[in-house]
């Protein structure tokens, strides 16, 4: 099936299958089993082995001078390298290994105080922080006639944080392969052990346990349209405050719900697809958010170019204030818990040359405090950033 997918993805609109074509007679039965998958996974292991590398640079804008009270204006820069290898094993299995390295440097907000004008201002963490995160993951997947199931083990380790997680996912198709049900579950055990260098921290070692589930269904609507909908639930227990922030005390339990949907529509004349995704999020800390993404995937011969826009809007957590009220049981001045909008504009493209695929991407993320809220609730440390990636993938027998 993977070989068929590769063949069909290279077809031009002039060569699309018709009921009477010779190619249809050869491939029809196999293509009929193309499932309405959540991901691009067919009911057979990949026909090729694949090895790839991606390099990304993430660069946060400096904090505006007017929002700074003390410390460095420079925020995080992160260099990210991703390596992976995926290969079929026998007739029914595949295995994938992923390695990611993040090299971080910069300063982050320590707490929010009042400047000489009586407005909230940020005290940064002082000297630049350097950290390195390494994540290793192994995924095995079993394929059968009507679906597939995957099992993943991963570990992430940095100087002050370690996460170990396992996850399981399964997808199965309706009899006519026009509908695919998916379910997944994961469990993570994290340990935070803050580094005591630039700023005082008040814990030595704490744990966080997280369990998460997702259930969804995708449905083929026509020969050029497909849709999906899904529900997610995640619960975390343990130390959920940020140890590097002076005024941060959060509940030790966090429940999160998501309702998400997506739609893809292929336009034959234009040789491109409209991609629409939406997510509603709600948690028991009082935050609600809406995320909408709109993209146009334009095919250019065997290459592609995809401009996209993402809009995100969240309400503040119940215990957030721009200057934390430490007399309350729970309090935080972390900008990530404030009310704000964020807009992302990006461009992603790839160039296919035989068995090699060259990939490049750039995006700009900008934030603004939600207009209807008072200045008292506006976080002065909202972050804007650039993100760019280049990558190469090689497929071989």
């Amino acid at each position, binding site marked *: 099936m993977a070989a068929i997918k590769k063949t*069909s993805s290279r077809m031009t609109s002039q060569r699309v299958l018709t009921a009477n074509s010779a190619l249809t007679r050869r491939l029809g039965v196999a293509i009929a089993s193309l499932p309405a*998958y959540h991901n691009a996974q067919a009911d057979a292991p990949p026909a090729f082995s694949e090895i790839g590398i991606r390099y990304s640079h993430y660069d946060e804008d400096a904090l505006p001078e007017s929002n700074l009270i003390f410390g460095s204006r420079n925020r995080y820069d992160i260099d990210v390298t991703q390596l992976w290898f995926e290969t079929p094993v026998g007739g029914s299995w595949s295995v994938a290994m992923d390695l990611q390295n993040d090299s971080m440097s910069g300063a982050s907000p320590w707490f929010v105080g009042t400047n000489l004008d009586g407005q909230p201002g940020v005290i940064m963490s002082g000297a630049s922080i350097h950290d390195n995160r390494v994540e290793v993951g192994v995924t095995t997947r079993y394929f059968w006639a009507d679906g597939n199931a995957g099992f993943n083990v991963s570990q992430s380790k940095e100087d002050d944080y370690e996460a170990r997680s396992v*996850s399981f996912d399964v997808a199965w198709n309706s009899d006519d392969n026009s509908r695919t049900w998916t379910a997944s579950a994961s469990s993570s055990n994290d340990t935070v052990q803050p580094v005591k260098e630039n700023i005082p921290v008040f814990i030595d070692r704490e744990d966080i346990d997280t369990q998460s589930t997702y259930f969804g269904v995708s449905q083929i609507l026509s020969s050029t349209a497909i849709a999906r909908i899904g529900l997610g639930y995640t619960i975390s227990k343990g130390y959920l405050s940020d140890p590097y922030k002076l005024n941060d005390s959060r509940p030790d339990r966090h429940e999160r*719900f998501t309702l998400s949907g997506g739609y893809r529509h292929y336009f034959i004349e234009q040789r491109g697809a409209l991609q629409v995704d939406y997510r509603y*999020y709600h948690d028991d800390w009082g935050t609600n958010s809406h995320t909408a993404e709109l993209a146009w995937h334009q095919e250019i011969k065997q290459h592609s170019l995809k401009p996209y826009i993402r809009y995100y809007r969240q309400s503040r957590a119940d215990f957030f204030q721009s200057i934390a009220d430490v007399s309350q049981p729970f309090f935080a001045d972390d900008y990530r*818990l404030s009310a704000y909008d964020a807009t992302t504009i990006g461009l992603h493209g790839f160039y296919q040359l035989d068995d090699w695929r060259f990939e490049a991407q750039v995006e700009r993320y900008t934030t603004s405090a939600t207009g209807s809220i008072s200045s008292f609730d506006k976080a002065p440390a909202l972050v804007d950033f650039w993100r760019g990636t280049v990558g190469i993938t090689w497929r071989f027998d």
Partner: protein
Amino acid sequence: MKRYFLAVLVTTLSAGCSSIEPVAAWERGYLAKDAMQWEAFPREGRFAGHVYTSKEASSGGSKAAGGGCGCN
């Protein structure tokens, strides 16, 4: 809240999917294209999700969540 979400899902599916005509075998070529996948580049999707999750209060929406990070 969980019951509310479940009710929305079941209602939408039962109302929306019951009247859809099956798509024949020879009509599924376009659906196999990269452009029609939910995530044609899984590593890009994973990385982008990690960035957004570390800078926003929200997370999840397409699969079960994995481990966290000490991201500031």
